[in-house]
């Protein structure tokens, strides 16, 4: 019996699970950043004054690990500007004034897919990135070359972050797309086994996926305990297959690919219609939001406009997040655009926005006891204070996935995730230096 991974029990707050997504009216402007994925920035191919339609290519992938970007509205390119990302650095962005017509570009037509190569090429052209939040280009993940390496595919539908229900809605409203996605994976990646992993707190989604699995012998629905971070990539692989992805390796190295259910549904719909990734169903919620719902939003729409669609605010907002409250990123401006890998935007009022005051570490060991990876955040903090990089390396700070369990559980409210990030950066810098020294010595 393998040892169960620990995690924390967070309040689910799945207030919008019953909210059928509404399509928001076209915004007046969209600002589409050229970095909405992990990898090389995309290369802009439009200039101010150009007319664009929905689904038209506006930026090409900047490299193999990259993704193309398409216009989410019809209208006129106004300027190539820059927006502040949640990481705090400005990235170039295309600002488009919408004509309100949402005219679909004539180039949008279903791609011709008949084998592995054309399937991967289609996924690449669709602009798909990991919609669960990570934003890793999907074509790169699926491009395993030798499909016999794939023992199984896990469709990650855990959705363990509080508040977010957009994946739940995909499973309920777009089960056909997921079924078609499974068929595509079986056909072009030669996959024999597909697991759909769902936390048990989503009965409607489980029922919907079970109906799908009844018609497809390769698909199995796996109901998982609701704990955070059940949907972490290495966590869900372990929960479903018992396999451990070793440090520095990828899921495919243990024969597994994990793909988010909304990403898969999108790929299926792209291959059917040819409409690239230009809109996203997101959950709009949080203690400050007047009427939380799921909204289908053109990519690049300012968060503030999406909140307006949800009745604005019932309390003065003091913090805006992209993503869930455990791993989501706080933004600097309410006008920050919604990007491809957003699955929720949340607004907190001033009572819930502020981080409680830090006190001293009492060495209770909870941060380590609840860490899914059995790491030791409190010890990292002490190693950081002592500038002891070797200790950080020995204690494997690099494995931290920044899920936030340690900070959530810490009774002293220490910024443990922040420390871990700092530790990881220090280790990376140190190893780079060592490598350079070793290179110079030769």
């Amino acid at each position, binding site marked *: 019996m393998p040892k169960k*991974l620990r995690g*924390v029990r*967070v*309040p689910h707050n799945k207030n919008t699970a019953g909210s059928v997504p509404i399509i928001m009216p076209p915004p007046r402007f969209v600002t589409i950043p050229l970095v909405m994925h992990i990898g090389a920035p995309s290369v802009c191919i439009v200039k101010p004054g150009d007319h664009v339609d929905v689904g038209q290519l506006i930026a090409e992938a900047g490299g193999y690990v990259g993704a193309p970007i398409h216009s989410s509205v019809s209208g006129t390119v106004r300027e190539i500007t820059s927006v502040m990302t949640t990481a705090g650095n400005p990235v170039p962005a295309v600002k488009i004034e919408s004509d309100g017509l949402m005219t679909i570009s004539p180039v949008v037509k279903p791609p011709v897919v008949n084998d592995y190569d054309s399937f991967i090429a289609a996924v690449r052209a669709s602009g798909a990135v990991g919609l669960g939040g990570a934003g890793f280009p999907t074509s790169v993940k699926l491009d395993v070359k030798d499909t016999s390496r794939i023992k199984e595919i896990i469709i990650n539908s855990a959705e363990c972050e509080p508040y977010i229900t957009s994946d739940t809605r995909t499973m309920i409203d777009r089960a056909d797309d997921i079924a078609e996605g499974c068929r595509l994976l079986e056909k072009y990646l030669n996959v024999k086994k597909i697991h759909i992993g769902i936390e048990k707190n989503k009965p409607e989604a489980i029922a919907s996926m079970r109906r799908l699995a009844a018609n497809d012998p390769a698909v199995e629905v796996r109901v998982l305990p609701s704990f955070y971070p059940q949907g972490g990539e*290495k966590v869900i692989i372990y929960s479903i297959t018992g396999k*451990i992805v*070793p*440090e520095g390796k990828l899921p495919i190295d243990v024969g597994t690919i994990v793909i988010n259910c909304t990403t898969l549904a999108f790929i299926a719909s792209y291959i059917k219609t040819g409409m690239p990734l230009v809109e996203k169903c997101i959950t709009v919620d949080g203690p400050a939001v007047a009427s939380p719902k799921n909204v289908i939003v053109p990519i690049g729409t300012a968060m*503030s406009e999406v909140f307006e669609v949800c009745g604005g605010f019932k309390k*003065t*907002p*003091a*913090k*805006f*997040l992209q*993503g869930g*409250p*455990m*791993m*989501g990123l*706080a*933004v*600097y*401006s*309410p006008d920050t655009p919604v990007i491809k890998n957003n699955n929720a935007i*949340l607004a*907190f009022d001033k009572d*819930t*926005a*502020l*981080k409680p005051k830090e*006190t*001293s*570490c*009492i*060495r*209770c*060991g909870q941060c*380590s006891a609840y860490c899914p*990876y*059995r*790491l*030791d955040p*409190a010890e990292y903090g002490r190693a950081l204070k002592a500038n002891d990089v070797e200790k950080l*390396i*020995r*204690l*494997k700070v690099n*494995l931290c996935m920044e899920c*936030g369990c340690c*900070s*959530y559980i*810490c*009774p*002293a*409210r220490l*910024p443990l*995730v*922040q420390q871990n*990030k700092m530790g990881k950066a220090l280790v990376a810098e140190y190893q780079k230096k060592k490598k350079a020294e070793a290179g110079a010595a030769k």
Partner: protein
Amino acid sequence: MNELLTVNVSPHIYTKRDTTSIMLDVVIALLPASAAAIIFFGLRAAILIASCTVSAVLFEFIFNKIVKKDNTIRDLSAVVTGLLLALNLPASVPVWQAVLGSAVAIIIVKCLFGGIGDNFANPAITARVVLLLAFPGTVTAAVFPSEKFTDIISGATPLAVISGQEGTLPSLLDMFFGARGGAIGETSALALLIGGVYLLARRVITWHTPVAFVGTVFILTLLLGEEPLYQIMSGGLLIGAIFMATDYTTSPTTEWGKIIFGFGCGLLTVIIRVWGTYPEGVSFAILFMNILCPYINRWTERKPFGGVPQ
């Protein structure tokens, strides 16, 4: 909408439990033992509890004022220290000695080493040991509740009787409910167990240390031909195993570490009780293991999930 937004690193939600609520839980868990102390030892116990607790908080407050640090008395850790110290002293200890104990615990053991979380030894235990060495007459005095629990009388504690002093051994039932000699808070096994169950239920402590500690004493004394039930209910064993050996700061954080720590405490307690000159060994055992704590943590470091050794 033009106001500045809060931006911080995730996560953005937190559990309700903080240091203060943990300490409050420990205080609540000590209430049955405190009540038992007052029932069995009367007004003297009440005075001892009040003077230790109030002076502990006061010392921390004054120390922080003098060194201009943020005041930490709101976290209730000084209350826990004062209360534990009082419960570990017999009713015969004069108030001034008890207050001196508080000063040792708070100022020397806790604050001078950096305050909450930075002390390497348990403040209440260290203070008790200091008092024991400084005033052996009053601190090891065997004090009994009187027949009607209206006053206290002197006599040998059960452990002293087991060690060969004259006196009668109380019945197991008296040991369980607490009508026997000893420090005011250690006599009622029932009250301490209620507190222990509360701490387990509230997940403030885990079972590892208390079970390893008590289990080790039980098995070793059984093998040595002693009365294991008397052994585990006498002296400060239960209060030590449940409340002192589980102190976060001075005990290991890993599960195996906690088991080793509890085992070490039990082993040392039995060695001192059976072969040492003192009839009671819990305080020395825990204090010694406190010092080993960083090493135990190091020996029991857990293998990270997916980690590959270099």
